[in-house]
C-alpha cells in the first residue's frame, strides 16, 4: 500500500511553468513612493490613495502576528516587488487582443478565456500577477445589471460603489496582512448584483502569480443587494520557483436583506517541493458581512496548495435570521503547513452557522483548524454546529484543532465536535476483499471523507477538486 501511496502523493505540480511575458514592474521595496506609484499607474482617485496611505501608516505600527501554528523565516517586505503587470501596448478592445502568450498560459491551465469555448455557464476574470487581463461575458452580465469586472475598472467606472463598500467589512487596520494589502493591493475582482437579481451564471476569478519576485495582493469585493443571489468561484496557481512568494489577499463580501452569496475556492498555489523549498505563503483575509435580515453567506474552500496557508474565511452575522456557512477541505503534504478555519460572529437574533472542516495531513506536513464561534449578548436563539475531522496519513504529520467558543447569551446554542483518525486497515481490507486496489480504495475513502464539503461545490469545481485531491495524494497512502 505504501508504494501506491507514494506514487499518488508525489505527482508533479502541473501548473508549475513560467510564462515568458515582458512585464512592467515597480522596483523592489515598500514605501509611500511605491504606493503613490501603484496608485498613479492605476490612475486612481485621491480618496483611494488616502485609503492606501492610511493603511500603510497603520501597517508600520503593527507587529507580524506570531500566534499561528506555522513556521517560516522572517519575510523581508523590502525585498519584494509590489507591482508587476504584463506589458500591454494599448487598451484592449476585445478578448482577441489579449497577448496570445497569456491566452496560451491559461489554456494550458484549463481556464477558459474564449467566450465561445467556455464551459457552458461561467464568466471568468483573469488576474495575472498584479493586474486583471481579461473578463469574459461582461456584456451578457450587464444585460441583467450585474457588474463583474476587475477592481481597477470598478474604481474608474463605479467609484461610488467602491468607496461605499471598500474596507467596510475588513477595515484597513484589521490585521497585519490586511493592512499591507490595503496599502498595496493592485487588482482583483469586483462584483455587484442589483436588487432582486439572480446572477445568471457562475462568476469566477482565476489568479496566477508569474513573476518570481512579486507578491500578489489582490482585493475582491462582492456586493449582493436585497434579494439577490450569486455564486462565485476562485482558483489560483503559480509557477514553480525555489523562492517563496507572498500572497496576501483581502476578500470582502456584503450581503444585504435576503441576499445570498456563495463563495467557492479551489486553492492550488505552488506548494514547494518535497523538502519544503519554494512555494507560496498564502496569508489571506476573507470576511463576509451578512448585513441584512435573512441573508446568507456560504464559504467553500478546497485548500491543496501553498507552502503555508493561513486564512480564516469568516462571517459576521449581523442581520436577524442570517446564515453563515463554512465548508473546508484542507490537504497538506510534504512540508506544507496549513492553519485555517473560520470565525462566526453571531450578533443578530436567530442567526445560524454551520462549520464543516476536513483536514487531511500527509508526509511531514502540519494541518491545523483554528476557529472562533462567538455568540454576543444580542444573539438570541442563535445556533452553531461545528464539525472538524482530521485524517492522518503517515506517522510524521501533524493535525491540530483549536476551536474557540465564546458564548454570552444563554438562549444561544453551540455544538462543536472533532475527531482525528487514520485510514484503517479494516477499511482497506474491506475494499481489497471486493477486488478494489489500494490506490482506488484510498481515493474513495478520502472522497467519502470530504463528501460533505464537495457536495457544496459547483459542479465544475467539484470534479476539479476531486481530481486535484487524487493527484495530490498519489502515492501517500501506505
Amino acid at each position: 500500500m505504501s508504494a501506491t501511496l507514494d506514487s499518488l502523493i508525489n505527482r508533479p505540480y502541473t501548473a508549475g511553468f513560467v510564462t515568458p511575458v515582458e512585464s512592467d514592474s515597480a522596483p523592489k521595496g515598500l514605501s509611500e513612493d511605491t504606493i503613490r506609484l501603484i496608485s498613479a499607474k492605476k490612475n486612481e482617485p485621491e480618496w483611494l490613495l488616502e485609503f492606501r496611505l492610511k493603511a500603510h501608516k497603520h501597517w508600520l505600527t503593527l507587529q507580524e502576528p506570531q500566534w499561528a501554528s506555522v513556521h517560516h523565516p522572517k519575510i523581508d517586505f523590502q525585498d519584494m516587488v509590489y507591482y508587476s503587470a504584463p506589458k500591454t501596448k494599448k487598451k484592449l478592445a476585445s478578448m482577441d487582443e489579449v497577448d496570445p502568450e497569456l491566452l496560451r498560459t491559461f489554456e494550458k491551465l484549463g481556464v477558459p478565456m474564449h467566450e465561445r469555448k467556455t464551459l457552458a455557464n461561467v464568466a471568468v476574470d483573469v488576474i495575472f500577477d498584479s493586474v486583471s487581463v481579461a473578463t469574459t461575458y461582461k456584456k451578457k452580465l450587464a444585460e441583467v445589471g450585474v457588474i463583474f469586472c476587475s477592481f481597477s475598472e470598478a474604481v474608474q467606472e463605479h467609484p461610488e460603489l467602491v468607496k461605499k463598500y471598500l474596507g467596510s467589512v475588513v477595515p484597513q487596520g484589521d490585521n497585519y496582512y490586511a493592512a499591507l494589502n490595503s496599502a498595496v493591493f493592485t487588482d482583483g475582482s469586483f462584483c455587484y448584483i442589483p436588487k432582486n437579481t439572480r446572477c445568471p451564471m457562475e462568476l469566477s476569478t482565476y489568479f496566477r502569480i508569474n513573476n518570481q519576485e512579486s507578491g500578489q495582493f489582490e482585493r475582491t469585493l462582492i456586493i449582493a443587494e436585497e434579494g439577490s443571489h450569486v455564486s462565485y468561484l476562485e482558483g489560483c496557481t503559480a509557477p514553480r520557483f525555489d523562492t517563496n512568494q507572498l500572497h496576501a489577499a483581502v476578500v470582502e463580501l456584503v450581503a444585504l436583506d435576503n441576499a445570498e452569496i456563495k463563495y467557492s475556492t479551489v486553492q492550488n498555489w505552488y506548494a514547494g517541493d518535497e523538502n519544503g523549498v519554494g512555494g507560496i505563503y498564502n496569508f489571506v483575509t476573507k470576511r463576509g458581512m451578512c448585513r441584512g435580515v435573512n441573508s446568507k453567506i456560504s464559504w467553500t474552500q478546497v485548500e491543496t496548495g501553498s507552502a503555508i496557508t493561513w486564512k480564516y474565511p469568516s462571517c459576521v452575522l449581523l442581520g436577524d435570521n442570517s446564515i453563515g456557512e463554512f465548508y473546508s477541505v484542507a490537504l497538506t503534504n510534504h512540508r506544507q503547513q496549513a492553519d485555517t478555519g473560520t470565525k462566526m460572529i453571531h450578533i443578530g437574533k436567530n442567526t445560524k452557522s454551520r462549520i464543516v472542516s476536513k483536514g487531511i495531513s500527509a508526509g511531514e506536513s502540519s494541518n491545523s483548524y483554528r476557529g472562533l464561534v462567538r455568540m454576543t449578548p444580542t444573539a438570541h436563539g442563535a445556533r452553531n454546529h461545528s464539525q472538524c475531522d482530521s485524517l492522518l496519513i503517515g506517522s510524521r504529520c501533524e493535525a491540530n484543532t483549536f476551536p474557540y467558543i465564546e458564548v454570552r447569551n444563554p438562549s444561544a446554542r453551540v455544538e462543536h465536535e472533532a475527531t482525528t483518525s487514520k485510514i484503517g486497515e479494516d477499511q482497506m481490507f474491506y475494499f481489497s476483499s471486493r477486488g478494489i486496489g489500494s490506490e482506488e480504495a484510498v481515493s474513495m475513502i478520502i472522497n467519502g471523507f470530504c463528501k460533505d464539503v464537495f457536495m457544496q461545490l459547483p459542479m465544475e469545481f467539484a470534479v476539479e477538486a476531486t481530481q486535484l485531491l487524487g493527484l495530490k495524494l498519489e502515492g501517500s497512502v501506505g
Partner: protein
Amino acid sequence: MSAVQQINRDDFLDGLVRCWPDVAAQDAAWLKALRARAAGRVAALHFPDRRDEEWRFTDLSALRELNFEPAPLQKLQAPFADFERLIFPEAAATRLVFVNGHYAPELSDTHDVPPGVTLAHLKGQGATHDLAASTHLAQHADVNHEVFSALNTSLFPDAALLFIAQDVVCERPLHLLFISTAQQTPLLSSPRCLIISGRNSACTLIEEYVGLGEGVTFTNAVSEIVVEEGAHMQHVRVQDEGREAFHIANNTVTLARDAHYQSINVTLGARLSRYTLGVVHHGPGTECSVDGLALISGRQLADTHSVIDHAASHGKSTQLNKCIVDESAHAVFNGKIVVRRDAQLNDARQQSRNLLLSARARVNAKPELLILADDVKCAHGATVGQLDEEQIFYLKCRGLSETAARNLLTYAFAAEVVEKIPLVSLKTRLRAVILERVHASTETA
C-alpha cells in the same frame, strides 16, 4: 516608558518573592537551592496578562492590584465552629490539615493510616523522607516557565507528603484539607502536595480547599502526583474558598507504565479560580479519566485548563468537563489533548458541556487537539446552551412546576460528574450543596 511599565508590572511578584529567604531559614540545603532557583525564575518571568494565550480569558489585574503578604503561622482553636462539617467519617483519622499553608497538628489526625502509607508533612519529617521529597519535589511542576508554580516553590511554608509503598492497597480514603483564613490584611497561602503512589499500589485521595471568614485571600497551590507502574489512584479535588478569594492551583500528574489515574475536580468557590491540570502519560498502557464540574454564580470566574499529554503508546484518556454558570459568572475551559510523535494507538476523548442559566453569564470554551501520530483515535466535543425547553415541558406535563423542573434538570446536569465520586459522605455533601445553589438561583431569578 516601557522600562517603568516593566517595573510596575512585576512589583506584585517581587514583593512576594522577596520573602523567600525567611521562609527557607530552617530548610535543608537541597530545598534552599531549589527555592533559590525558583525565586530566580519568578524574577525572570512576568506576571501573566490577557495577552498571554494561556490567560486570554482570565483577567488577573484585580489580583495584581492587591498587596499580599505570605501568611504567617496561625493557630486555629480546634474544634472551631465549622470544623465537624469538614471531616469525612471515612477519613476521620487519615487526614492532614493545613491552615494558610502551614501544618496544623491540632486539627490533623493520622492514627488510622495503615502500614505502608506515609501521610506526613515535610517540616516534621527531619531527614526521613528527604530523599523521596528531594527526588520528586519541583521535578514535575513546570517551575521554569509557569510563574505561579515558581512562586509557590520559593515560598511554600510546608508540604503535604503522601507516599504509598509498593503493592499496598490503601482502603481508607486519605484527606488533605487546606484551610485559608481571611484576615485584616490580604494573605497569600502557598499549599504544596507531593504524592507518590508506588508500583501496583492503590489509593483514594481527597484534596480539599476551603475558606473561612469573609475577606480577600490568595491561595497559590501546587500539587505533584506520581503514579508509578501499575498503580491506581483516585483523586477528588474540591475547591470551596470564600467569595472574595483568589485561587490558583497547578496540578501535575505523571503516569508510568500501566498506571491508572482517575480524578474529579469540583469548583464551587472563589471570586477567581484557575485550576491547571497536566497529565503526562509517560509509559505505555496508561489510562486516565479526568472530570470536572464548576458551579458558579454572582461575579465568580472559574477557569480550568488541562493538558493531557500522551507521550507513550497504547494510552487511553477520557475527560468530561461541565460548567453551570449563573448570574454574571464567567466560566473558562481550555482542554488540550496532545499525542506526541510515534505515540501510536492512543485513544483520547474529551467532552466540554456548559450550561448557561442567566443572560449575563459567559462561557469561553477551547478544546484543543494536537496530534502528531497517525494511528490514534481522538475526539472532542463542546456544547454551550441553556436547559432544553422540551425537557422542561416533559417534566411540567408530569406535574412539576417550572421551577422544580428547572432545578431537577440542572441538578441532573451536575450529578453526572458528582455521582462518580467514590466517597459517599463527600458525594452526599456535594449533592446538598448543588441542590441548595440550584434552589437559590431560581429563587432570585
